[in-house]
């Protein structure tokens, strides 16, 4: 077990290195640079800037010095947010995105999984159709529409009622400001989780061992919770691993709509601005998180299925 864990973590290092390398050269190969803008910068200033950020050094030298700095936990200065290092930007934004994402994730699990189970146990009844319909709606409505819709309802139409919620802004993480972004972020995940849970639960409920459990005269609840649920959760965990890494690193759309100071926007803005170091920073963060979550998933499999062995 421990040697498995150590091995998996060691394998993570070359994986991360490969991602860093690909991302570094892809960014540099992309036409344009961080100092191209609509209003041209005077030649001398541009030359100074390029020298300041070592952009005139040979590419392999830039790459090696970037790696060297990374080893010293230095993600470099941002090219666009001039007074900030990438580490500072992430340190400010990531906790916000992380909290939001975690809240959305917990909400999605708390709602989506029971919904899926309820639908599976009442297969082909109105309850099942309602859940499947809602899930489909949640999947097909993009979050920029859903976010605006929620703002319209709770921020505008219900303005004078007790259900009024702020239309945006972070307000230092006040609870009421978190509700709409959390719900917007959670809705598609609720939908996916409900669908996945429903499908796997229906399959497990047809398993021979569930029939055995029923033949024992166990109450239906015990059959479902004790005998079916654990196996039914395997695909849910498979989905949740990468989904967690994804949701915790913030959503550009949701953070833009609700004006939340997270890191979700850096993925898009950084790329558009050719802010090389910032893009590298958020990419490394989400890659590391993804590697970590995949390891978590593999460990949770062991809890769900005694046949899984770590060696």
């Amino acid at each position, binding site marked *: 077990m421990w040697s498995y864990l150590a091995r998996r973590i060691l394998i993570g290092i070359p994986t991360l290195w490969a991602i860093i390398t690909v991302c570094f050269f892809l960014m540099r190969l992309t036409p344009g640079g961080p100092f191209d803008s609509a209003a041209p910068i005077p030649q001398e200033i541009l030359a100074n800037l390029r020298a300041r950020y070592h952009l005139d050094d040979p590419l392999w030298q830039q790459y090696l010095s970037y790696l060297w700095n990374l080893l010293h936990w230095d993600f470099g200065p941002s090219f666009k947010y001039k007074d900030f290092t990438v580490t500072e930007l992430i340190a400010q934004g990531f906790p916000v995105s992380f909290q939001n994402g975690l809240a959305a994730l917990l909400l999605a699990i708390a709602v989506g999984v029971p919904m899926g189970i309820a639908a599976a146990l009442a*297969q082909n009844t109105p309850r099942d159709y309602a859940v499947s319909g809602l899930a489909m709606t949640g999947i097909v409505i993009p979050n920029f529409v859903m976010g605006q819709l929620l703002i319209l309802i709770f921020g505008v139409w219900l303005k004078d009622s007790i259900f009024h919620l702020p239309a945006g802004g972070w307000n230092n993480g006040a609870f009421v400001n978190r509700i709409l972004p959390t719900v917007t972020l959670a809705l598609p995940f609720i939908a996916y989780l409900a669908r996945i849970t429903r499908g796997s639960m229906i399959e497990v409920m047809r*398993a*021979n061992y569930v029939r*055995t459990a*029923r033949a*024992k005269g*166990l109450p*239906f609840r015990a059959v479902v919770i004790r*005998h079916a649920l654990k196996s039914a959760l395997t695909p849910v965990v498979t989905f949740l691993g990468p989904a967690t890494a994804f949701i915790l690193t913030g959503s550009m759309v949701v953070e833009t709509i609700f004006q939340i100071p997270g890191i979700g926007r850096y993925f898009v803005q950084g790329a558009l601005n050719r802010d090389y170091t910032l893009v590298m920073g958020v990419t490394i963060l989400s890659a590391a998180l993804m590697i970590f979550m995949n390891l978590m998933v593999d460990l949770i499999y062991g809890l769900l299925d005694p046949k899984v062995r770590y060696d």
Partner: protein
Amino acid sequence: MPSTRKTADVAGSDTVLDIQGLTVRFETADGEVQAVSDLSLTVAKGECLGIVGESGSGKSQTFMATLGLLADNGRATGKVMFGDADLLTANEATLNSIRGNRAAMVFQDHMTSLTPHMKVGRQLTEVLQRHRGLDAKAALDAVIAMLRRVQIPEPERRAEMYPHELSGGLRQRVMIAMGLLCHPELLIADEPTTALDVTVQALILDLIRDVKDSDNTAVILITHDLGVVAGLADRVAVMYAGRVVELGDVNQIFSEPQHPYTQGLLACSPRLDDALGGKLKTIPGQPPNLQRLPPGCAFAPRCPYVIAACAERPPLRPAAGGGLKACVRDDLASITKAAS
């Protein structure tokens, strides 16, 4: 061995299970399938009723319906009296107080019939905790005693194992132990020896015989293995296309089968004294499509003795030898004798 039992199928004072006019239908995408049609059977205390027939003859579904374990698309009509409860109309709570307690079923797929993520011991103790109200410690003691009775070596250690850590023979014995935990009045064993090697088969059959004789349990033995039936059953019901086509004392069924299908089945069994290099016999034709059963005798298309009267469904009626048969012809014995 109990003395020769009544062969005519009438419920008596020691009847444990009384199935009357059971019909099982499944709704499928291609239409309705009638898996069991108007079937009546009884089984008494200390008796073993063998149910034989090909795959798809409805033998398993009959008893799934009996215990309320049909798949969601299945519907059962008729009457299934167990004690004074009709299991087809009983509510879930009543069924749950009977299942695993007074009536237990041992399933055929020992590979998949145990919950993979639960220790074997826990899967057994929960039966006693549910029906006997035992605490975990007392239940485990009783489980270990039962595992010992079904001849599982080192039961304390096996109880701590997961199903995948046990061999097929051990798993099947765990299934039987599960069925016997509450000393049921009725044990339904669905292909209990299929896919097991012969020594384990013999052991499991001995166990079932022991339960029948010493606990006076009524046993229903569902199998397509005629050898198993011959060794264990007191009476035999032969099923074809969802109906009983012949019912009788085990000796009568094997020595003087009355229905052409039973005769065909017996003729298919390879015998030690068959000529070397001889071909295995088969019944010509295919098992019937349950969605398009002929209006008359379902076996007629494969029957060598078919006559015009077979176009009408033959009722189950008394036959020579004291059993029942669903065949219009009474002159088969003389024909087959003449042929051999």
